[in-house]
């Protein structure tokens, strides 16, 4: 992604209200799935409106970032606002074990799906 004409750093500063980090931003993984819990309403920040429209079906944080053409760190801040106000919910990835290894049932599902590709 290259920053578009309306994505200059000043604008990214503005859409996040100048914050560079949200308290819970580390809880939003790239593949955390975001789901809208309400429709956009008049007066909402335009990025929030777009996120609520996009996430009518589950959408990963990284997809929201690509669609908005904004860095993941900026999108995490936008999403944490919407999460705080209950306008979206987050479906977090199930953690893999400490040894980095997923359970074998899940791997079997992955293998089956890959074979079907």
């Amino acid at each position, binding site marked *: *992604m*290259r920053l578009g004409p309306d994505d200059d750093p000043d604008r990214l500063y503005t859409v996040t209200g100048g914050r*560079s980090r949200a308290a819970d931003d*580390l809880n939003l*993984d*790239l*593949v*955390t*799935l975001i789901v809208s819990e309400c429709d956009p309403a008049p007066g909402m920040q335009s990025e929030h409106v777009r996120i609520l429209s996009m996430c*009518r*079906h*589950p*959408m*990963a944080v*990284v*997809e929201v*970032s*690509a*669609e908005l*053409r904004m*860095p*993941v*760190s*900026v999108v995490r801040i936008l999403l944490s606002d919407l999460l705080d106000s209950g306008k979206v919910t987050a*479906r977090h*990835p*199930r*953690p*893999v074990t400490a*040894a*980095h*290894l*997923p*359970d*074998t049932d*899940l*791997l*079997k*599902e*992955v*293998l089956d*799906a*890959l*074979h079907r*590709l």
Partner: protein
Amino acid sequence: MHSTASDGGPGAAPAPDAHADPSRTPLRDTADNGLKIVIVGGFGVGKTTMVRSVSEIRPLSTEETMTRAGVGVDDPSGVEAKSTTTVAFDFGRISINDSTVLYLFGAPGQERFWFLWDRLFAGTLGAVVLVDTRRLDDSWYAIDRLEAHGMPFIVAVNDFGGPQHTLEQVREALDLSPEIPLVACDARDRKSSKSVLISLAHHLYSLSAPHETVKAAP
């Protein structure tokens, strides 16, 4: 300092505008668990090509920006030296079942990228190191870092039609441990890229269930 790491190579087509794609397929409403696999490698090695070969959506790209305090943070003058690094990466996706969706990330393997690894790719199932035999030294750093992170991985040699090397020669040149799977592939080919991912999944399976076996690919 501002640096950008991206994959594409000279002559790569410009990224199509995501907004111009009305056909992007939404996930099922029951989707609730995202998995990650990372394809890592040097510049122009074919990471995006591999993602494209197997993804159910046209690959998308985005970037992460991170500012880190430089040397001299404790400087009593209070002046912090900071550097901002932007890492661009591509991704695609494969739906596994009603609840699980696998995201494939193509990520640059250059040294300056790795401080973002924990933030971006923590919880990743495993990685594919994609290798161009003409530029093997691009892979050493990535292999080294994956080992340091304890991240399971396999190595896939992308065929660029150059001089042929046997996998044994590549294994030796990369100083790769015998337990790390090494496969040859053509990243442009769906079947070939699919079999790379299957090799990784088998490897993960053998690590997770050392006493079980799983049927080999047909």
